[in-house]
C-alpha cells in the first residue's frame, strides 16, 4: 500500500482546530482540482469542509479522499486543498 503513504505527504493539514496557514494555500487566485473525476476551479486555500459546502454536501455523510489519502471528518475544516489535488467525495449507495 505504498501509494497511500507516499500521497499522504502531499496533504497539508493544520490538524484539528488549527487555522490553515495562508502560506500553505498554494498561492493566491484559483487552483485546479479534480473532484470525482471532473476538473473544477476553486479559490486558493479552499478547505475540504468549504468544498463540501460548494458541492451541496454540507451536513451530509461524506467520506473524503485527497490524493488517495483519507481525510477524516475531524480534519475537513483544517485541510486546505492545493492546486492539482485529486479529491474523491464518496457516499453509500445500494449494493449487495
Amino acid at each position, binding site marked *: 500500500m505504498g501509494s497511500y503513504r507516499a500521497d499522504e505527504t502531499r496533504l497539508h493539514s493544520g490538524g484539528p482546530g488549527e487555522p490553515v496557514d495562508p502560506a500553505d494555500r498554494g498561492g493566491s487566485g484559483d487552483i485546479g482540482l479534480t473532484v470525482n473525476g*471532473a476538473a473544477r476551479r476553486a479559490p486558493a486555500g479552499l478547505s475540504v469542509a468549504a468544498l463540501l459546502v460548494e458541492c451541496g454536501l454540507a451536513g*451530509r455523510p461524506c467520506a473524503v*479522499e485527497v490524493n488517495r489519502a*483519507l481525510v477524516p*471528518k475531524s480534519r475537513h475544516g483544517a485541510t486546505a486543498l492545493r492546486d492539482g489535488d485529486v479529491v*474523491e467525495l464518496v*457516499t*453509500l449507495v*445500494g449494493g*449487495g
Partner: protein
Amino acid sequence: MAIGNGQHGAAAAGSEPGLSPWTVAGRTFTSRLLVGTGKYRDHATMRDALAASGCEVVTVAVRRERLYNDRGESLLDAIDLSKYTVLPNTAGCFTAADAVRVSRLGRELLEQLGNAGASWVKLEVLGDKKTLLPDPAGTLEACRELVADGFGVLCYTSDDPIAAIRLKEAGAASVMPAGSPIGSGQGVLNPNNIVLCLELLKQGDEAYPVVVDAGVGSASDVAVAMELGADAVLLNTAIAHAKHPVMMAHAMRRACEGGRQSALAGRIPKKLYASASSPWEGLVSHIPGE
C-alpha cells in the same frame, strides 16, 4: 459437523426450536439473512422487502457522490439506519489496494453515521468483470491488510475449501463462499464444496460463522444452503429482481428459518428403496409376490 446434536434445542430466543442467535465479528443477530440494498425498482419496495425479510444486516456499496446530476433520494435517507447494522462492501474492486481503500472510505462514512457497521466490511476482490468471480490471491492479501487495520473482515470467496481455510487463517471474521456467481440465481451449484468449506472452517471451532454469499435465485436455494450447515445466507438480486420482491423476501425468511431448523433437526439418511409409512401388519388386501 456437530449440528443436530440437540444443544440448539428449544432454548432459542424465539418460541420456535432451533432459531437461536448467531455471532459474527463480535455482533450477535437473530436473523440469519443478510440482505443487499441494490437493484430495487424503488426505495419503497426496498424498505418493505428488507422489513419482510426480517434481516438485521444490510449490505451497501461505496460510490462517488453525484455532483453534476440529480441525486434523487439518497439510500441513506431511504433506510432507517437505527434498525439495521450496515455492512459496507468492496464490490467492484479488482485489486487488494482498491479494496482496502474502499473499506476505509466505508468505515469513515459509517463512523460519521454512528452506525455499528463502522468496523467491519464485506470484502470482495474480483478477478473479472464478466464472471465476478473472486480473485483468491487479491482477496487473501486484502484480508490480511484489513485485519491488521482492525476490520472485522467478512470474506466473499469461491467455494474452494482450501481458499476458505487460508482466509480464516488470515484472520477473516467470516468466510463467505459463493453458492454460484453473483446475481446468477443458480443456487448452490456444488453442495459438496460448501460442505467441505463448513467442515474445514468449523473443525474444532463450531461457532466460526460461515455465510453462503451469492448465487441465490429462490427460497429453496436459501433452504439448501442452510440445510448444508451454513450459519447464514447473504443475498440481494433474488429479492430485488423478483417479480414481487416483498413476497419473495417473506419466502426467503421462511426458507432460511426452515433450512436452519431442518439442519438442526437431523434429516433421515437417503436410501435407494422405499420404506412404507403405514404398517404392513393387519393389511386386508393382497401383497403381490407374497
